[in-house]
């Protein structure tokens, strides 16, 4: 699913757009700083504080995210499905460490906390032409 050439788009250089939908069919779009690569069939999004996205995917797991290659501006649209919320393991540690590192550099240690790494299954990948 996720090809090698897409990896640079998942380094959090260009923010990604995430679209979710409530159980009532009300859509919500938001910009997120990074989509994390878990494996070729999974991505992770950070759950730092409760918001509409978090609520929506727990009601309706289907979502879509658009990522962009920072050098070529190639864009991919991924249909994803929320699977689980992880509070430990490699991907959680990786995300948590990044948060801690950057927060501490900005003198904001302890303000940001990673609640969980939300794991999504990648259902389809579509290259978007502009």
């Amino acid at each position, binding site marked *: 699913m996720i090809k090698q050439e897409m*990896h*640079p788009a998942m*380094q*959090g*250089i260009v*923010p990604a757009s995430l679209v979710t939908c409530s159980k009532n069919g009300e859509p919500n779009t938001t910009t997120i*700083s*990074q989509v994390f690569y878990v494996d070729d069939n999974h991505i992770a999004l950070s759950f730092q504080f409760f918001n509409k996205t978090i609520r929506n995917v727990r009601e309706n797991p289907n979502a879509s995210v658009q990522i962009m290659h*920072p050098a070529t501006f190639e864009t991919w649209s991924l249909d994803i499905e929320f699977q689980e919320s992880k509070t430990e393991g490699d991907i959680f*540690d*990786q995300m948590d*460490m*990044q948060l*801690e*590192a*950057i*927060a*501490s*550099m*900005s*003198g*904001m*240690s302890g303000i*940001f906390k990673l609640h969980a790494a939300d794991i999504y299954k990648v259902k389809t990948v579509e290259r978007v032409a502009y």
Partner: protein
Amino acid sequence: MQNLTATDILKNQIVDNQKVIDQLNADLARKNQEVKIFQEISTEINNTLDLDSILNKLLLLLDKTFEFRHSMVLLSDELDEKLFVAASHGYETNGIGAEVKFGEGIIGVVAKRKKLMRMGNIGAQRAYFNSVKTQMTNAGEETKEDLKLPGLNNVQSQVAIPLLLENALIGVLAVESEKTNVFDSRDEIIITILANQAASAIDKARAHIKLKHINENLEHLVHERTKEVVMQKDIIEEKNNDILDSIRYAKRIQDALLPAKNHMEKHVKDYFVLFKPKDIVSGDFYWVNQKENKLFFAAIDCTGHGVPGAFVSIVAHTGLQRALILFSLRTPSEILDKLNENVTDMFSHDNTSTDIKDGMDISLCALDRDAMKLEFAGANNPMYLIRNGKLTEIKGDKQPIGQYLSRKDFTNHKIDVEKGDVIYLFTDGYADQFGGPKGKKFKYKQFEEMLLANYNLPMAEQSKILERKFHDWKKNLGQVDDVCVIGVRV
């Protein structure tokens, strides 16, 4: 048409397959090259035991072979939970010694969690946090300054890897760049392999340093101990010298108690004395006194030798003088009885102690040259008289002067003497000396034969022969006891 399409498909497949094969070959070639470089680097950094040199080599090689332009190694102080820059490469200032607390920045978090970290979007992430911070400041919330951390000011990409040895953190190796997203997962693997190499090299170097310290410490310790021993030796030598000085002084006192040479020549006339103390002072001594027409002479062997023997000899000397002068005794046996009384008294202050065996063996003669009479009494020791080539032994009583259970009065022997008779008195030191070809005692038989063989010679010469014989017999063996032999010609 269908056939053609199938061929095309096949052709395309072959082209595609060739592409994959080329790619795989290229990958293989690259991998081989990498392995070679790793081996070289590994050899290079493991060949040195100097920590600074290991670290600098590592960072230089990272630049030369992998084009990692900015890198540093921080060593950890796990107790204080901080790291300090030990080596750096590619910076304007080397920043050696700069500190990073555990949990601060990428390097600090890597140290804290002992897990590697790779980021390519540091600038973007920081911008995000800074915007939040601005919002917080605008809302009147208190915020802290940005941290000052070693490394590039405008860092975008960084890989930081914990240097671990058996799960203990030695330090962190960090590679960074001002460009975004420059390190990929392959770089991560490369750096990880090198970090592991570095960790073991650092550990080796540290062990070496530790060993060196221990060695130096040991050397220092040996030096100190030697100094101490030398000091103690000096002290002992000094004390020994003090003791020797006082013993030498004691010898002067003892010498003063021995009869003077001119006194001997005047009264004993034709005689010799072979007197060879084992130590400086002696338990053996000889005593001469002339009262009226009687010449008293004795060879005394006090128990022990050296200092204790010398102490007893003073008692013996006093006792003999008392018997002769204070009690005006003129009979050898009576003199010995008196001496015994005196010595027993003197050594029995402590009545409960039965094991004071201090005392002496003695042979005592009184020679009256006018009457040509000789009287003799002995405590354990005999006297020899040689006349016309015949040796006569006159035994003393089998009891010492001093504590003895079945004590009886001493026997007084009276002998008529003739001109030319030679009388010998002696202690056991001569006959008891070990030596000769088999390391055995000299013994009395040989002693008697020696006296017999030489009794006609002038007394002074006899003394010389006795001394030489003793010396030849003893050779390298130590002298066993004090030696005293007196010869008097009637």
